[in-house]
């Protein structure tokens, strides 16, 4: 069921440049389990949109099927949402994006949705460079159907019933980098300080942005022998270092040692400032990014942070040479060639 929160606004709540408070970015009451990582992600999306002064009605929230795909109902009430069919959100996003590229597209998916049933659409949306933020709320399990393994579950992990996972995991970040995703980050639902700037960067990025967010399932995959539990992730998370989002025109206030940070310029002129854990790492080099992910995986670490970015990519609508005016605003006189031209066409066919 959908439940809506009463709107009681505290007069002293912080306001952004649009005069809106965080409450204005909220959604319906979550029906996910208490402690679900997905709710933390929704909160981070709200925070990112608040800080970026996003007009919620210019956002389209899209999802497939699964616990993660319910989440768009729990943030940005003023946005249109589309909860589609299992694994097929990328195609809805592609069509919607072509019809009106002026909106911000937030696609919310899960590991079942993206790594199994919808892996084809996921890959092809990346390949086409659909301009969107694609969240994978990755918990390694099928929650809504009560705890089956998903394709991102680690080989050594067990399910709630003590059964072994027999097949190796699909790493969505490596796959996305190889397929040409132009902004790829991995994060953890429990690391708000890291996640919020990564979401802000993804929103400002033009092109396909993947956020693979490990988001523990408190009910089915948070036990001791799971590699997607809160404890396991906290013990094995190797964050890339601090990530700061720097809006256009603002000074970088972070204070890193010389040579230990890297700046990534985003399409609107804002920047991401990343603290480097490794002096050799360059997030604009896909080969290095893949190497880092592989190395850390071998060490048993889960590397999180901005893994790869290509800020020169062309999104789908540019590749296809679409007009600046969205297709959905074109009127009949711009669309219909009319009877005179039809007569010409008739002549050519006679």
């Amino acid at each position, binding site marked *: *069921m959908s439940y809506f929160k009463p709107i009681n606004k505290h007069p002293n709540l912080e306001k952004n440049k649009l005069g809106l408070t965080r409450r204005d970015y909220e959604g319906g009451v979550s029906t996910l389990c208490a402690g679900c990582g997905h709710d933390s992600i929704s909160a981070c999306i709200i925070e990112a949109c608040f800080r970026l002064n996003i007009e919620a009605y210019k956002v389209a929230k899209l999802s497939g099927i699964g616990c993660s795909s319910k989440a768009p109902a729990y943030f940005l*009430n003023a946005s249109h949402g589309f909860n589609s069919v299992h694994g097929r959100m990328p195609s809805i996003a592609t*069509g919607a994006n072509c*019809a009106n590229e002026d909106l911000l597209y937030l696609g919310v998916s899960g590991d079942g949705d993206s790594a199994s049933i919808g892996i084809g659409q996921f890959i092809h949306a990346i390949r086409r460079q659909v301009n969107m933020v694609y969240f994978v709320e990755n918990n390694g399990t099928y929650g809504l159907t009560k705890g089956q393994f998903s394709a991102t579950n680690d080989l050594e992990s067990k399910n709630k019933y003590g059964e072994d996972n027999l097949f190796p995991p699909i790493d969505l970040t490596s796959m996305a980098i190889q397929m040409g995703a132009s902004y790829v980050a991995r994060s953890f639902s429990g690391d708000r300080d890291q996640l919020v700037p990564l979401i802000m960067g993804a929103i400002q990025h033009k092109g396909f942005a993947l956020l693979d967010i490990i988001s523990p399932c408190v009910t089915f995959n948070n036990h001791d022998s799971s590699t997607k539990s809160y404890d396991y992730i906290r013990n094995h998370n190797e964050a890339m270092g601090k990530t700061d989002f720097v809006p256009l025109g603002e000074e970088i206030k972070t204070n890193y040692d010389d040579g230990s940070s890297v700046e990534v310029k985003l399409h609107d002129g804002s920047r991401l400032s990343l603290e480097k854990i490794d002096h050799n790492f360059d997030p604009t080099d896909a080969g290095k990014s893949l190497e880092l992910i592989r190395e850390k995986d071998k060490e048993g670490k889960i590397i999180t942070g901005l893994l790869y970015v290509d800020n020169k990519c062309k999104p789908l609508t540019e590749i296809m040479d679409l007009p600046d005016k969205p*297709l959905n605003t074109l009127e*009949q006189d711009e669309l219909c*060639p009319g*009877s005179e031209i039809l007569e010409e066409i008739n002549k050519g066919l*006679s």
Partner: protein
Amino acid sequence: MENPVKVDPINSLNDFVIKFANVNGTGSASANQMFAKSIFRMGIPISPKNIFPSNIQGLPTWFEVRVNNKGYLGSRGGVDIAVAMNPQTYTQDVEEISEGGYLLYDSTWKRNFNRDDITVIEIPLTQLCVDSFTNAKQRALFKNIAYVGALSPLLEIEYEVLEKLISEQFVSKPALIEPNIKALNIGRDYVLKNLPYPLGINVKREDKLKDKILVSGNDACGLGAVYGGATFCSWYPITPSTSVAEGFEKYASKYRVDPQTGKNNYISVQAEDELAAVGMAIGANWNGARGFTATSGPGISLMSEFLGLAYFAEVPLVIFNIQRGGPSTGMPTRTQQSDILSCAYASHGDTKHVLLFPEDPQECFEFSAEAFNLAERLQTPVFVISDLDIGMNDWVTDKFDWDDEQKYDRGKVLKAEDLDKMDNFGRYLDVDDDGICYRTYPGTHPEKGAFFTRGTSHDEYARYTENGDINEQTLTRLVKKFRTASELVPDPIINLSEKQGSSGVIFYGSTSAAMYEAKDILNENNIEVDLMRIRSFPFNLDVWEFIENHDLIYVIEQNRDSQMRTLIMAEGGISAEKLRSLVWFNGDPIQAKFIAKKIYERESQQALIT
């Protein structure tokens, strides 16, 4: 002409069937099309049919042209002249020729065909081309043009018409005009010097086709989509529908480019599969752009889950289904009308969809454009159901017509100013009591009009609900909407005979051409029938009235299971005895003789001799 003919050769003016037997991938298609178009240019009705394999090179392929001055455009059956260019199929091709018919073959390698009842025309086409061209590719390719040249004196095709067609065809590659004309002359000169001409079968200018064009149904669908305002096309390659998307791209790239910026006011995306193709089209429509996808039967199966979503979430969508032979992969290059039920009820749960059945390319154009109005008015998927016969063959059809005064019907869409005046927006509130609710595009209004589109059960405000009563109300409203649809879709075309108490005939789509001819055959044999051509589903009152007024109705269709009959029975509770099924499903276009024979036998209780 060597064989002594034991039967009188066929004599016929502007009324015959000629069949070209070729090897696919050898360049025969354009030569054969040129032949057909030359007769069309002489104002004589033709119906060309491609009979081709699901293959790129090396397998047999045929091109059959029925020339008929009465304007019967259905497949006739039988062959009067065979142009046999494929030794692999000589046996079959020669066997098919009617008594008194003609065979033209490449006599570079002589054969004896053991038919003393036909006229054999020997032309050493390969030898002639080897002698005249040095390039190996040209030698092979120009054999085809050479036989068209030979047919010019044999059938009295106006030579200037052929020359003009060549210069038109190669207008952008003028270097190719000269060798093509040379090839044409090689065949023609050989006949003039060595053979008696014309044959007993020949053509003569009639100028009957002033307001007609020659075009395929798929080209017409693509053009209709451009005129209908489609800006978004997503598709996955599948025979025989691919040329719908190609037609759209062809016309859009010419007539839909912004003159100022040079940017495309349309997009065509080749999707990774049919699921994505339909998903993208739904996404575009959800966002207020007119979007469509084109597919064939297997694609409909793959799209079914999404079709249920579009039905239940009430998102407009246009789907072209160019039917082919099923089930499964079936006969991808043959024709059938066997997806009627799979489209009418596509997807799980209680679903029903709007279907349009064009009978020829002119109607493909008209219905294609209209489908976008219906889809947006009704906020539901609308299928344009054509088939391989209409879609991939050229048809003599009425000129396309467009009324500049007629405005697109964008349906019930609320703008920001509408929302400002409203206190209570509910996406699924049936405000007008016609089952159709008001929708908003994303990004319309800062505070009002947002809603959550979902395939889960929802209330009038688009909120998820598991309340059974509310879900029942939604499903019941969708039935009401379907009734509204029946008032908006194209009416059936009814043609009653003079005679009271005649039996009825129901048919649709590509069966029409054969049915019109069958009616004339029946009339000549003193059988009257009342015709109803169904053009859409849901059926409206005219359809039910016609059925009510007849005791016996033949339902003629090109599938095994009488799917239209089943649909009529299911939707109207019509008794099985009343509707007599008459089916043809061998993958070739249905023939008038077959229909006439079956109806005659049943009506007169005796056999029909034609």
